[in-house]
C-alpha cells in the first residue's frame, strides 16, 4: 500500500467534537482545577485573613493543627459519618417501601403521588426553617405535642443528645421522596414475567419481592444510594446552617459546616482548605469502595 494517498478529512471537521466540548470543559476545569490548586496552596501555607503577618510554608504544622492537636476534626468526621449512614439507610428503606405501595394500582394513586414528592422540590433553607420552628420549645408544633404528653418546653435542637436526630428527621423528610421516585421508576421498568413465573412456582408475595424484585433492581438501587450518599455527605449544609449552625456546642458540626466556619467565620483559611480537601479524598474513596462493593462484577 505504499505511495497511496491517505485521505485526511478537513481539520475543522475532525476537530468538531472538540469545539462542541470546549465551553463545557473550560467551565468545568476552571471550577474544579483552579479551586483544587488554590486549596492546595492554602492547605500548605499559614493563611489567616485577620492576621496577614503569619504566612509561609507550613504543611506539617497545618496537618498537626487540624488532625492531631484538637479532636474537632474527628468529632466532625464521626458526626458526618453517623449522619450519612443514618439518613441514607432510613431514606432507602422508606423510599423502597413507599415505592412498593405506589407500584400497585389503586384509585387516587396518581393524584396523591405528586404530594409525596413535594419536599424534594422545596428550598433546603426553607425546609430547615420549618423544622427549626416545628422543634421550637416555646411555640413549635412538635414541642406543643410533647407538652400535651407531659414533656415541658423540650427543644430537640437545643439538647446535645437530640440535636442530630432533629437534623436527621429533616433530611429524611426532604429526601425520602427522591428515593421513592427512583425506586418507583426502577420497579416500573422491570419486566413482569419473572414475577408471574415465580407466582406460578408458588412463591409468596414477600419471597417474590426479596428474591426476584430486589435483585433485579440492583442497578437502580446502587445509583440511588450512591447519589444520596454523595449529596448527604457534601450538601447537608443548608439545613444544618439554618437549624443549629453546628450547635449546640459542636454536636451537629459536620465536615462541610466545619470547613465553612473555619474559612468564613474564623478566617482560618488553611484549616478550611484542609478540611474541605479531606472531604474530597473521603468522597473519592467512598465512591470507589462502595461502587465496587455494591455493583459487584460488571454484569453486562
Amino acid at each position, binding site marked *: 500500500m505504499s505511495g497511496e*494517498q491517505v485521505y485526511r478529512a478537513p481539520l475543522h471537521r475532525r476537530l468538531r467534537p472538540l469545539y462542541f466540548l470546549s465551553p463545557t470543559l473550560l467551565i468545568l476545569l476552571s471550577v474544579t482545577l483552579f479551586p483544587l490548586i488554590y486549596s492546595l496552596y492554602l492547605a500548605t501555607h499559614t493563611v489567616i485573613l485577620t492576621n496577614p503577618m503569619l504566612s509561609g510554608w507550613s504543611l506539617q504544622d497545618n496537618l498537626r493543627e487540624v488532625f492531631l492537636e484538637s479532636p474537632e476534626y474527628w468529632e466532625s468526621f464521626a458526626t458526618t459519618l453517623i449522619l450519612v449512614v443514618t439518613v441514607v439507610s432510613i431514606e432507602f428503606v422508606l423510599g423502597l417501601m413507599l415505592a412498593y405501595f405506589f407500584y400497585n394500582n389503586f384509585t387516587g394513586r396518581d393524584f396523591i403521588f405528586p404530594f409525596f414528592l413535594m419536599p424534594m422540590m422545596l428550598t433546603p433553607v426553607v425546609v430547615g426553617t420549618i423544622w427549626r420552628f416545628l422543634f421550637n420549645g416555646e411555640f413549635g408544633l412538635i414541642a406543643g405535642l410533647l407538652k400535651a404528653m407531659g414533656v415541658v418546653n423540650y427543644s430537640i435542637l437545643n439538647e446535645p443528645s437530640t440535636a442530630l436526630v432533629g437534623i436527621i428527621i429533616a433530611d429524611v423528610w426532604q429526601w425520602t421522596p427522591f428515593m421513592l421516585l427512583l425506586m418507583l421508576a426502577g420497579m416500573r421498568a422491570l419486566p413482569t414475567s419473572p414475577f408471574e413465573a415465580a407466582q406460578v412456582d408458588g412463591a409468596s408475595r414477600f419471597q417474590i419481592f426479596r428474591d426476584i424484585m430486589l435483585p433485579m433492581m440492583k442497578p437502580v438501587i446502587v445509583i440511588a444510594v450512591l447519589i444520596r450518599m454523595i449529596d448527604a455527605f457534601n450538601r447537608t449544609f443548608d439545613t444544618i446552617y439554618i437549624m443549629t449552625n453546628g450547635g449546640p456546642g459542636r454536636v451537629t458540626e459536620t465536615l462541610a459546616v466545619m470547613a465553612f466556619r473555619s474559612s468564613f467565620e474564623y478566617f482560618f483559611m488553611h484549616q478550611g482548605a484542609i478540611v474541605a480537601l479531606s472531604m474530597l479524598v473521603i468522597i473519592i474513596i467512598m465512591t470507589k469502595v462502595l461502587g465496587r462493593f455494591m455493583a459487584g462484577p460488571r454484569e453486562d
Partner: protein
Amino acid sequence: MASIDIRNLRKKFGDLEVIPGFSLHAEDREFISLLGPSGCGKSTILRIVAGLEELTSGDVVIAGRNVTALEPKDRDIAMVFQNYALYPHKSVFENLAYGLRIRKRPEDEIRKRVTEVSELLQIQQLLQRRPAQLSGGQQQRVAMGRAIMREPAAFLFDEPLSNLDAKLRNHMRVEIRQLQQRLGITTLYVTHDQVEAMTMSDRIVVLNHGMIEQIGKPLEIYETPASIFVATFIGSPAMNLVRVRTDGNALVFPSGDRLSVERQLQGDVVLGIRPERIKLSASKSENSLPFEIVLVEELGAQKIIHGRIGATEMTVAFPEDVPLPTNGASVSLPGNYLHFFDPESGKRLA
C-alpha cells in the same frame, strides 16, 4: 450520466481494518447489490459513498465529480435506511418535502412534487399522518418517497426491506426494482438476503470481510461461483460440498464410491453441486451413487431431501409431482453442473 466510481477504498476503525481495499464501477442506471454476511462492511461502504463516514484512503466519484471531501449534503444522493429514519416530529408530507424546503424551492413546486411522488407510491391518503401512526410497510414507502423526491444522482439502500414481513418484502422487492428502472437512477443496494440480490440486481458484488469475492450478473454468480464462500452464500438450499480425492478421471468419495468426470484434476478437490441439479432415481444406472434418504421436507413446490452417500451428507431438491423412490435410491450428478474448488484457497478451479 451518473455513474458511481469507488477507487481503492480503504477504511479502518482505529486499528481495525474493515475495508482493506475496494473498487467498484457502477454504470449510469445500473442496480448493483452489495451482498454479504452481517458485519462484512456493506454498510460501511455505503455510508462512505454517502459521506456519512470518513474514509481512510481512496476516492469516491459520483457522476464524474470527486466527492471524497464533500459533505453528504453536497453529494446529490438519496439514501433509504434500514430503520427508515423518518422524522418523527414531522408529518408524512413534511418528511417528503424536507429536502426541497432546505433547497428553498417555491411552495407550489413542493406541493406538486409531493403529490406526484405520493401518487407514484400510493401514499396520498397518509400525507397528514405522523410516522408513528404508520405500519411498517407504509413507513417503508414514505422512506422510498423521500428518496425519490429530489431525483438524485444515485440511490443508496441499506437493507431497506429487512424489517418487513416476508410477504411484504417480496412485494416491495418488485416495486423497488420497477421504480428504479422507471426513474433510471443508479443504485447501490446493500443486503444480506441473497434472494433480494438475485432478483433485483443488474450485478451483484459478493463481499466477505470487506473484500470482493466476486462481481457479476446474478446468473453468472449462480452458475459459476468464484469461491466456496460465494457458492454457499448464493442459492437455497445451499450447494452441497464434498471433499473428494481424484484418481485419474475419477473422483473418489470418502465412502469409496467413484464418479468419473471428464476433467483432469489432481490431488484433493472440493466438489460442489446444487441440490436442484442432482437427479434422484430408484434404479441404479451407470455413474450413479447409492443414496440413503434420511429426512424429507415438503415445501409444496418441491421436496427437500436430506440423505447420505456413505457418510457424506447430501441435500437434493426434488420436484413435488414426481413420486419418491421408496427403497434403493440412487443419485446421479450431471457433469456439466459440477463445480470444483481448491480445498486450500477455496477458489474455483478453472
